[in-house]
């Protein structure tokens, strides 16, 4: 959209939204939130940027190749944390063995798994937007 106010204010709002998403990500075990919501909030910042400027501008910040790499990395992280437990002789996705004590292991395990979920959700949202953004809803351009 060619609108001065929207452009300047999006620039101002971009970083606080991403930081809020990361806050929800890392405080998932203290309050409402977690990986899924955090991923959606971070993706919302990118989508806002892509809508107000253009998809090409957003691809400068988040190139499609990096997007796919991070998408796969998130899923890999999730599975990897699970398999560590399996190797060390516990069931799949058991966090107790990750730290020195049971508590610390739980904390680190939940943090890592949630981070994987957040990374995947965020990048799936962005790649969905990249794929469908230029879909025209049967309306002609009238400007």
């Amino acid at each position, binding site marked *: *959209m060619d609108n001065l106010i*929207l452009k300047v204010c999006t620039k101002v709002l971009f970083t606080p*939204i991403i930081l*809020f998403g990361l806050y*929800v990500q890392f405080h998932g075990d203290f*309050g*409402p*939130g977690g990986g899924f*919501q955090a991923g959606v*909030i971070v993706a*919302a910042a990118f*989508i*806002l940027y*892509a*809508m*107000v400027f*253009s*998809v*090409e501008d957003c691809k400068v910040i988040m190139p499609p190749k990096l997007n796919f790499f991070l998408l796969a990395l998130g899923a890999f992280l999730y599975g990897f944390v699970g398999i560590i437990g399996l190797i060390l002789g516990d069931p799949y996705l058991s966090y107790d063995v990750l730290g020195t004590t049971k508590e610390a292991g739980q904390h680190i395990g939940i943090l890592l798994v949630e981070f994987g979920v957040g990374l995947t959700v965020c990048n799936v949202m962005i790649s969905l*937007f990249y794929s*469908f*953004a*230029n*879909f*025209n*809803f*049967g*309306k*002609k*351009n009238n*400007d």
Partner: protein
Amino acid sequence: MFLAVLIALSVSFLLILVRLIIGKTTYDRILAANSIGTIIVLAISVHGFYMGRPEFIDISIVYALINFIGTVAVLKLFDKGTLGDK
């Protein structure tokens, strides 16, 4: 006290809903939807205090955010007919 505020917010929600339904132009409807969003943001945090769980405030920040981005998306869709560049 919080309950009274919640009831008043619901009354104004219903009043704005009337505007959302009778509409006339699309812009009226977008405006009414945006105002309903603000009312809901306030209602979520007041409800959090009413239930004695103020951590609901995180949710209302998220709601305010999604309300803004959703309004921008709908406006862009009406402007260009697409969310992308074309």
